[in-house]
């Protein structure tokens, strides 16, 4: 692939979803775009890339290229600690703060094949105090294909052995051949919607908890701060944001501040929380 062809792919992906394709990821382009080239009857990935250089490439082609280039790496209870914090710190706080309305809304941004929202759903299900509450978990991703997989809630043996405690597998999954099917009571707690993090998220509603983990690492600084600003705009004043272990708001956005004693958890920065429009999470 020539530098010009590689550049065409990188520019398309960046324009469409903000993802920065660094030169060290160039090796991914070939393997990820091969199936797309085949579907579009192109003789090679290079030919596909040249199609992207045309003034107005087909929208479906652009979408498939973007979907192929985003990373879908995820697993159940990834890094474990954020979920322990959710159970021990965030949920008790919300149980007290939302006692009158009994509604909690949680957003998993860039949820990929659904393991993160489903992990959260399992935690909420295992929290007896939430029994009569409405817990709405919204999983979004740019890729409609991966959302289809998420919605199906069917996982391979490999996937259910990454992060998922065996007791939860036994409790919430049914075996179907060599696949594991998550049961309807957990799946019904999560709704999936296609969403591009570059777009305004208003239509998703307001959230008490936002998980946006291991996503910002793929973006440049202005894109990161734009995303954080948009997330802040749909958070309840006392809501919390989770970022991945290698991510921070420091030097990226002044809309958030770290929650003391809770590593990786952020809340709206105090001036914003005071001056910004007061919004309660509403379905």
């Amino acid at each position, binding site marked *: 692939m020539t530098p010009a062809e590689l550049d065409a792919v990188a520019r398309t992906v960046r324009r469409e979803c903000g993802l920065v394709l660094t030169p060290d990821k160039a090796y991914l382009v070939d393997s990820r775009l091969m199936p797309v080239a085949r579907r579009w009857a192109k003789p090679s990935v290079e030919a596909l890339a040249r199609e992207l250089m045309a003034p107005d490439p087909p929208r479906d082609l652009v979408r498939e290229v973007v979907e192929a280039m985003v990373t879908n790496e995820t697993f159940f209870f990834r890094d474990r600690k954020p979920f322990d914090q959710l159970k021990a710190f965030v949920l008790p706080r919300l149980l007290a703060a939302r006692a009158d309305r009994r509604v909690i809304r949680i957003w998993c941004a860039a949820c990929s094949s659904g393991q993160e929202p489903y992990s959260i759903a399992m935690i909420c299900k295992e929290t007896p105090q939430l029994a009569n509450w409405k817990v709405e978990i919204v999983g979004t991703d740019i890729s409609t294909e991966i959302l289809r997989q998420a919605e199906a809630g069917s996982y391979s043996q490999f996937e259910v*052995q990454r992060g998922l405690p065996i007791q939860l597998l036994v409790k919430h999954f049914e075996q179907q051949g060599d696949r594991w099917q998550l049961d309807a009571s957990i799946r019904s707690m999560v709704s999936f919607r296609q969403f591009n993090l570059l777009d305004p998220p208003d239509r998703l509603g307001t959230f008490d908890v936002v998980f946006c983990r291991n996503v910002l690492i793929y973006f440049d600084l202005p894109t990161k701060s734009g995303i954080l600003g948009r997330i802040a705009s749909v958070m309840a004043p006392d809501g919390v944001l989770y970022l991945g272990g290698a991510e921070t708001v420091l030097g990226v956005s002044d809309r958030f501040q770290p929650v003391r004693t809770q590593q990786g958890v952020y809340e709206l920065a105090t001036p914003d929380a005071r001056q910004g429009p007061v919004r309660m999470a509403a379905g």
Partner: protein
Amino acid sequence: MKSCLVVDDSRVVRVVARRILEELRFEVVEAEDGREALERCREHMPDAILLDWNMPVMNGIEFLRTLRAAEGGAAPVVVFCTTERDLKHIREALAAGANEYIMKPFDSDIIADKFGQTGLI
């Protein structure tokens, strides 16, 4: 350093498991069936046991039941590691006192993950 007893009748599996566990800083002891595993436990109760199901002489589930009834046998974290991958076997293992369950094939990520979940690492 924590200790882990690897119980499997396949020498290849024991070698692979040993390599992974030593990288995770476990002191590894091996046994090739349930009866030998019980002897190892009598000599020294390990912190963890990685346990195959189907073995000659005494299989994994019989070993586990005997272990859990024995003095000091409640302590070790027992992680099954077997080609038995249906819910019936998994439930039976948990009822007998297994802490975690790995469906073969396994790799170092799965072992690290399961050992992490049970608080061993």
